[in-house]
């Protein structure tokens, strides 16, 4: 077991909609990321995965609000810190973030190099323009981006190039944890592959300590990450290795999700896709029992009333369901 770079304990946050309603999108989420590992978070739209990505940064601004829980980065709890300290000492250095919409993630009227200067200056790391330029040039060379990008405005870059530039800037200070929220979902498949390849290289080269990868695209997640957590309605419902989650999911929701994977590979045409009826619950008023109960094929009366905790298997897998592993497997066997 490697060194744990990020440990999150029972993190709960909410965001406030423009109608002043509270949405509890991250509800008692715990997770761990080891050095050199990639953790995937899978979930559909509205399950809270993007809010989780933002919440993990430990730096909150409206409409997102911290409620409770701990974020420990490399042994240091950052939740109690004063926001200005977090900003200077944690952001970019300990944890870095890549947003989903790379199209708009860079200031449109600033050259790439100027933003890099701002980032380095704010962390008090050498204010000399020449040094900064040299550092940026070397980084760009390492990650396979042309030096000319530094002198360009974001509008002059293609979508894939922009996203890779954003990633390069995010890893400028070699963060211990990189949180990537759907970094490639707006790109075509080839650019997506380039972005993924870049992320893998960053891990191998040690430019980032570990990776949290958030997406709804399961085949991608399977290829990128070591472990996967499945998120549903603000909660983690199952956690295991990528292989276990994709090929042998235990939680009924995870089972349904994995049953909807379509890839252009032989045999796929004969698979019967699983359908889950209904829609996820409203997170303004989350149900008190199991949040998946309303849509679950195997629902029991008890599911709707008791809050369901995690069950942990011997191999470290956890899932949130009242049924035992054996019961679930039997139920899946019988269809």
């Amino acid at each position, binding site marked *: 077991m490697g060194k744990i770079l990020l440990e999150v304990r029972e993190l709960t946050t909410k965001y406030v909609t423009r109608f002043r309603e509270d949405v509890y999108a991250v509800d008692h989420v715990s997770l761990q990321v080891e050095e050199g590992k990639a953790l995937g978070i899978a979930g559909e739209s509205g399950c809270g995965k993007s809010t989780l990505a933002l919440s993990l*940064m430990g*730096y909150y*601004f409206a409409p997102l609000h911290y409620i409770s829980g701990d974020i420990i980065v490399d042994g240091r709890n950052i939740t109690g810190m004063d926001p200005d300290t977090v*900003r*200077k000492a*944690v*952001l*970019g*250095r300990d944890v*870095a*973030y890549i*947003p989903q*919409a790379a*199209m*708009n*993630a*860079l*200031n*449109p*009227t*600033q*050259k790439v190099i100027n*933003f890099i200067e*701002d*980032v380095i200056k*704010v*962390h008090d790391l050498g204010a000399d323009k020449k040094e900064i330029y040299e550092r940026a040039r070397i980084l760009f060379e390492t990650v396979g981006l042309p030096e000319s990008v530094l002198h360009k*405005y974001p*509008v*002059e870059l293609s979508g894939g190039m922009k996203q890779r530039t*954003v990633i390069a*800037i*995010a890893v400028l200070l070699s963060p211990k944890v990189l949180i990537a929220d759907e970094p490639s979902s707006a790109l075509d498949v080839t650019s997506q592959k380039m972005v993924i390849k870049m992320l893998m290289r960053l891990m191998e080269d040690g430019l980032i300590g570990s990776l949290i990868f958030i997406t709804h695209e399961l085949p991608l997640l399977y290829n990128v990450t070591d472990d996967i957590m499945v998120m549903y309605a603000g909660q983690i419902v199952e956690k295991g290795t990528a292989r276990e989650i994709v090929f042998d999911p235990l939680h009924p929701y995870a089972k349904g999700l994995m049953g909807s994977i379509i890839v252009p590979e032989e045999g796929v045409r004969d698979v019967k896709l699983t359908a889950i009826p209904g829609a996820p619950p409203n997170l303004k008023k989350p149900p008190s029992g199991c949040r998946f109960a309303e849509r679950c094929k195997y629902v029991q009366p008890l599911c709707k009333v008791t809050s369901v905790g995690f069950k942990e298997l011997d191999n470290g897998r956890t899932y949130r369901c009242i049924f035992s592993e054996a019961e679930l497997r039997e139920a899946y066997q019988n269809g």
Partner: protein
Amino acid sequence: MKAYRKYFLKKLGWFAITFVFAFVLNFTLPRLMPGDPVAAIVARLAQGLSDASGVQAIYQQYSELFGTNKPMYEQFFIYIGNVLRGDFGFSFSQYPRTVADTLKSSILWTIGLQFPAIIVGWIIGNVLGALAAYLKGGFDKVLMPLSIFASNFPAYGMAVIFMVIFGVALEWFPTSGGYGFDLIPEFSWNFIKSVITHYQLPFWSIVVIAIGGQAIGMRSMAIYELNADYVKFARFMGIKDRKIIGYVFRNAMLPQVTGLALSIGTMFGGALITEIVFSYPGLGYTLLNGVMGQDYPLISASTLLITLMVLLANFTIEILYGIIDPRIKAAQAD
């Protein structure tokens, strides 16, 4: 640079086309009205002027200037030729002064008053609007209604109130004219001092009007920008809020520059009326004299001049915009 030149030429072409259209409109609009313009003008003149020989002279001058007995298109070319030579004919109301002479003495006053006032108002308005968007809360709650009020208050209304408060009641500044009525324009300390004190009231009433609209526009642009993704990314890279405000201000300001280009005509109109309230010796006041004296050549020439000034201002802003917004260069590059 090549890209920028292309942008420049495009804007220049557009400017030229617009001016030609404005010129044609200026020429045709009065002629589109039913009835013979010369007859109508002379009829009006008969009431206004007692000097019979003066009327006769103007009538001939006018016929010559417009060539009223010739076909329309010929009249048009005659008119162009005259205008190009700076010959707008005699003024009806101030005969035997020429229109060109009258305008020459008023145009500098207008330029000196309006452009600085509009620019100062624009800058203050933008700063206040950005602050309102960023600070929110009380500042925003006080500033916004005030801005809405100021921007919807008629321009001359602000002028009148300024005049009553600071001119009539407090007697801080003189209430009318561009300089003391007992002075003659010259380069003396006395005269300059007088010009400066006379300048204050019209200047600030234009500024206040301009502030309101700009502050509202800037506030909503800045709110929009503050929610942009690059703000989120920059925050998560540890960038200080103050720096981010800098980014946002710059980006929100750019549409405000185009907004200024588009609204400069309207602002100019309001400012002309402010001149009238203060009897400031600029184009607005000249225009009023033209209307009062039924002085058609004077009106026609001053509206043409105003149009030209607005177009030029607009053109200048667009050209500057092309320099400050890198996206223009990038968009033209491919």
